[in-house]
């Protein structure tokens, strides 16, 4: 699960990690109150930061959501020493469409702003914590090249990235924090404050079941303080059950409406841009089915794993979700019935097609227990199914269905 920058900072603050101070607002009417509070804390320069679940906000552009041609403002993160100017920036961000290199051309509507303290600093660093799958341990990555895209640094100058792996039995050690600090070339007061900073940061990562924590940039202020200027945190979905305070951060506005709908029915759905919808049991087979669609000359419109129980309800809900995407020109159902019986799945498909009015051609491939009975059921249903017996056959039928579509 992803959360916003301001939420990540709230979380880090609970662990004593020094973060950039600020207040989140959801409407322009809250702006003056936020500024007054910040001023009361002695803050007199400001950064207005758009809160969306995507990076590259600073270099992003804001457009009118009703007219995507109309550029409102360059930059989704703005610095100023004037409260008035800050309000102007805020008004141009809230409710508008922010497009960054990570959002794609669709962009994201800015619904929350983080009005933060503007800080003067002399150095930008990079810090990241995540799982290193190759050794099954967490790794801390640090670099003097803060503020830029770390992927670029990793590719072009990998020697500039310092790595420390954490031994799970003993946890993160202060000698490791010192090693990172010296590796980053820190001295004096900055060196001293880095070690506790790093220890607290790792603790926050570990105790919240985070799957990724990135501070980019981490800054050294002119008076040698270490502060997280930005913060990005992702969490392990499997562990959310033990972190209610994190689960409460879920922002449904940031998620695809269809994906939210699907998750209500325990369907694992991801919307894509293609023209062939698919419904499959199992994640691996679902990906393989998407690949088959592509090889057959189509483009997958979605990933949809209906899980272990492919019954009438799951199939009907699957159809509803796939069909609410207007780009879908055909549907491929690929169920490998192992423990579940194919004839039951077939009956589910038939009932679901009758219940939901399915107007696009449907290719059905059921394999496994009672596959022959299932095939007969589908063929004798009086409904317009293309019944395929093998994966190869399914691919061919998708190709022919698609070519018919283009003729029509």
């Amino acid at each position, binding site marked *: 699960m992803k959360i916003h920058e301001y939420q990540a900072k709230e979380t880090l603050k609970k662990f004593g990690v020094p973060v950039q101070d600020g207040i989140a607002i959801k409407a322009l009417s809250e702006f003056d109150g936020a500024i007054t509070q910040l001023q009361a804390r002695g803050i007199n320069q400001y950064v207005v930061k758009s809160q969306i679940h995507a990076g590259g906000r600073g270099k992003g552009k804001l457009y009118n959501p009703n007219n995507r041609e109309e550029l409102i403002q360059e930059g989704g993160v703005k610095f100023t020493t004037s409260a008035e100017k800050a309000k102007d920036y805020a008004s141009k961000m809230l409710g508008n469409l922010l497009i960054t290199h990570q959002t794609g051309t669709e962009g994201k509507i800015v619904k929350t702003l983080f009005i933060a303290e503007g800080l003067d600093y002399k150095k930008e660093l990079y810090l990241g914590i995540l799982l290193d799958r190759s050794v099954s341990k967490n790794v801390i990555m640090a670099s003097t090249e803060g503020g830029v895209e770390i992927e670029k640094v990793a590719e072009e100058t990998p020697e500039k990235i310092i790595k420390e792996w954490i031994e799970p*039995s003993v946890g993160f050690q202060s000698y490791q924090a010192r090693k990172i600090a010296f590796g980053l070339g820190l001295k004096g007061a900055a060196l001293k404050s880095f070690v506790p900073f790093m220890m607290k940061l790792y603790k926050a990562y570990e105790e919240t079941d985070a799957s990724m924590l990135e501070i980019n940039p981490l800054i050294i202020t002119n008076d040698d303080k270490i502060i997280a200027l930005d913060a990005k945190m992702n969490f392990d979905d499997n562990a959310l059950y033990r972190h209610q305070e994190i689960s409460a951060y879920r922002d449904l506005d940031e998620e695809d409406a269809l994906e939210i709908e699907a998750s209500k029915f325990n369907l694992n759905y991801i919307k894509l841009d293609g023209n062939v919808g698919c419904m499959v049991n199992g994640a*691996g087979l679902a990906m393989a089915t998407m690949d088959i669609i592509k090889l057959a000359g189509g483009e997958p419109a979605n990933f949809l794993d209906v899980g272990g129980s492919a019954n009438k309800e799951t199939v009907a809900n699957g159809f509803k979700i796939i069909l609410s995407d207007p780009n879908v020109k055909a549907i491929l159902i690929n169920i490998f019935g192992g423990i579940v019986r194919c004839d039951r799945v077939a009956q589910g498909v038939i009932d679901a097609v009758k219940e939901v009015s399915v107007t696009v051609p449907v290719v059905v491939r059921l394999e496994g227990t009672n596959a022959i009975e299932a095939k007969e059921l589908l063929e004798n249903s009086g409904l317009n199914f293309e019944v395929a017996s093998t994966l190869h056959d399914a691919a061919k039928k998708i190709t022919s269905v698609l070519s018919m579509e283009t003729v029509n």
Partner: protein
Amino acid sequence: MSILLDKKTRVVVQGITGGEGSFHTKQMIEYGTNVVAGVTPGKGGQKFEDTNVPIFNTLAEAVKVTKAEASAIFVPPSFAADAILEAANAGIKLVVCITEGIPTKDMIAVYNLIKEKNVRLVGPNCPGVISPGKAKIGIMPGFIHKQGKVGVVSRSGTLTYEAVKQLSDLGIGQSTCVGIGGDPIIGSRFIDIIKLFNEDSGTEGIVMIGEIGGSAEEEAADFMKKYVKKPVVGFIAGRTAPPGRRMGHAGAIISGGKGTAAEKMAAMKKAGIHVVESPAEIGITMKKALDKEKKKEVKKKISSVKKTVKKVAIKKVLPKKKISKKK
């Protein structure tokens, strides 16, 4: 022959009285698996349904009484890490964890703790292990399998069934099929299972089914390039998956441009693996590869026969002198 599991392997089921656990235990017994015990804390002393399989409160007790050597884990995700550790500490040699949804943090701790112990973990979040015609530990449908000589190793469930069905339909049986699981942290990786298949004299070919995400396929390809002479057919699912989106399995995500299908397929091709573009071609490609091996062998045999014929012929025309010299 087979790896990891055969008819004699003594199996204990952790979470035997739960919904999934009881259903699949019955299936396993029906398939011929030697299930000797079950564990459900608080239900010790009972028998499993209408069988004679005893239930114990702790795994240590089950091992002591029944000498169980392999375990199947069907407990809920929040108890699964504990169950794996219990098995490892009770002296179980093979732990197959079916449970889906275990927090990564729990698995980091477990993986690194049991690494030093003499135990092999398969999974979590996997369909399990089956040695066709002998035994199965897991949730895969037994009837699609056929006893034979191809080893199958895969990160997914139903896609493995798909590949197995293709093989069986072509008359190609399997020595053992191992679903290693789709999580970021798993007990056995491709390379571990491929090593076993490589050493198993009963395995003549290997099918490897990977997914986007991580670098386990590349690691395995490296190993195979150096050490594996048996024919290998490979497929990577998720060529059409967009970066940054998790495709169902917690491990299946392309992050920072790494773990793409294209990268994995290139590494595998370089290692001499028959990489198929379409998942529909897995079976047929293995058949061709095996046929080719057979032809090679026949050729070798013919040429060695020819050589001996030649030798015999030469011996026959050898002057007697030389023969007497040898004496």
